[in-house]
Each structure stands twice: as structure tokens, then as C-alpha cells.
């Protein structure tokens, strides 16, 4: 397999899962349960990504004060819960991360 062919394969296999639902949008009507399921996609996937990125460090689960990612994520969680403000949440999360790095 040549390099070009290999890359074309990668292009196809990356593109197809993204494109098929877009292609079908409006052409097929989803069953009721599937429509309900779509509501949970952002919550489910983004939370899973956050959990792995904040709790796992160098291949182990790390829950302590040395995990600055986790500390900042917790701060962001409570700020977002009380204010629901996106920019403020991100700002406080980043600031708490810098503060933790500096102090702890």
C-alpha cells in the first residue's frame, strides 16, 4: 500500500462516521427513543472526556491535591453550578489552576 493510498484510506475512515448522519439528516425520521438519546450525547461524551483528562495522570487515577487539573475542574464545576456563566467559569478554572501550580 503506498503512502498516498494509505492517507486516502485514513481520510475515508475519518470522514465517513462524521458524514453519514449529516447525509441522512432530514431524509430519515428517527424513532422516538433515538431522538431522546441525542439529547444526552453532549452531556455523556464531554463528561467522559473531562473525567479522563482530569482524573488520570500518566496512566493512573490520581485523586489528591497534587492533581491541579482535578482541582481546577472542581472549581469550574462549582462556579458553573452557581453562576452558569461560561466565560467566568473558564476564567476561574484557569486562575485556580495557575494558583494551585504556584501555591501547592
Amino acid at each position, binding site marked *: 500500500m503506498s503512502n498516498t493510498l494509505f492517507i486516502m484510506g*485514513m481520510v475515508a475512515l475519518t470522514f465517513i462516521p462524521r458524514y453519514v448522519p449529516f447525509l441522512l439528516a432530514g431524509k430519515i425520521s428517527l424513532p422516538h427513543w433515538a431522538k431522546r438519546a441525542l439529547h444526552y450525547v453532549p452531556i455523556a461524551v464531554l463528561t467522559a472526556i473531562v473525567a479522563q483528562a482530569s482524573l488520570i495522570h500518566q496512566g493512573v487515577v490520581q485523586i489528591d491535591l497534587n492533581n491541579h487539573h482535578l482541582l481546577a475542574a472542581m472549581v469550574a464545576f462549582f462556579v458553573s453550578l452557581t453562576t452558569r456563566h461560561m466565560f467566568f467559569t473558564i476564567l476561574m478554572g484557569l486562575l485556580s489552576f495557575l494558583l494551585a501550580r504556584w501555591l501547592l
Partner: protein
Amino acid sequence: MQHHRTTLLLRGMRDTLPLILAAIPFGILFGAAAISQGLSVFTTMAMSLFVYAGASQFIAVTLLASSTALPVILMTVFIVNLRHMLYSAALMPQVSKLKQWMRIPLAFWLTDETFAVVSHRDMAQPDAPGWATYYLGSALAMYGNWIFCTWVGMTIGQQIPDMTTWGLDIALIVAFVAIVVPALRKRADWACALTAAVVAVLCFDWPNQTGLLFAALSAIGVGLLLDRTTTSDAGQQHV
């Protein structure tokens, strides 16, 4: 109208900024790693230009270096990208309003980051006009940044320190938290998020991000289950 479009495009870019910051070290690392594994400048850039999927590109470079069989690499790439099928499905209601030709570039540019930013806007302002323009702003900012960082990594990647240890991915973490938390309204939403977090941590060492996919699917299942229970309860009350 023209002014309005530009504003939307810029707003999409602006809302993606924290996620761009988090992506920079990985773009540079990809460029540097690909070159040091012996990939040509052309192949490396072609991946960022035409594949445009961070995880797939890293897997390809790593597996090529360990001389894994090419069909195995392609299969792995496909599995890693199944998560994006969920994203794409979740955006179907909005995409159904768009012309078919527009769906091709938008699908190509679909990433974790653009999905997060766009679905946040959908939750905050459902049916807001200019969906595709906003999406495009976010996507172009991510794409431009990825290509630029790949180029930086290829050219001066060996001379600059490894930025992935700086912890810039914190920007992605707090941005995703800021997007998810306001979306947690019903009991089923909370149960869904909790399941996602617990399963993702339990399955973190599954290969090729399958733990992530499994966590997402389990969490959607839990949400759906509680959702159904609640609606049927409500139904019974009406009877």
C-alpha cells in the same frame, strides 16, 4: 446581512479560543513526532490537511513507527472515529435544514471542540439563526490552528520544549465543564453525567479510546432509561 455573518463567524471563533489553546501543544507535538518517526513533510502535512483528526493522526504515526500492518492501522482509525458519529447524529436536527453540499465540509471539520461549542449554543439559544456560519467560524479557527501548529512542529519542533507537559489541556477541561454543567437540568441529565464520569475512569485503559465510547454509550443508556421512567410516570399521573 454581510456584517451579521462576519459577526457570527467571529463569535464562533471566539467561543472556540480556550479549546484552541489546549490544542496547540498537540498540533506541535504531532508535527515534531511525525518528522522524527521518518514521515515526509508532505505526508505529515497531508494528514493535518486532509485527515484532520488529532487522535487518528497520532495513532497512525505511532503504529507506522512500530510497523503495524496498514489495514490494522486503518481499522484502529475507524474505531477511534466512531465517537464522532455520535456527535454527527446529535447535530442532525440542525443539519437537516442545510443544503447537501454544505454538509460535506461541515462533517469534515467536525471535532470534539467544535461539537462542544456548537451544542452549547444550541442549548443556550435553540433555533438561533446562522447556525452554519457560527459552526464554520469555530471549525475554521480549529482547522487553521491545527495546520499552523503542525507546520511549527515540523519546522522547529525539535528546538522548542514539549508543551504537552505545560498542562494547557486544562483550558479544554474547564471549557467542557462550563458547557456541560448548565445542560444538567433533569435528574436523568445528572445520572447520565455521573455514569459517563465513572465508566470513563473505570475503562480509561481500554485501547484506542474505546473506553470513552463505551462510557458515552452507557451514559446515554442511563439517561434514556431514567428519562423514560420519568415520562411514563408523568403519563400515569395524567390518567
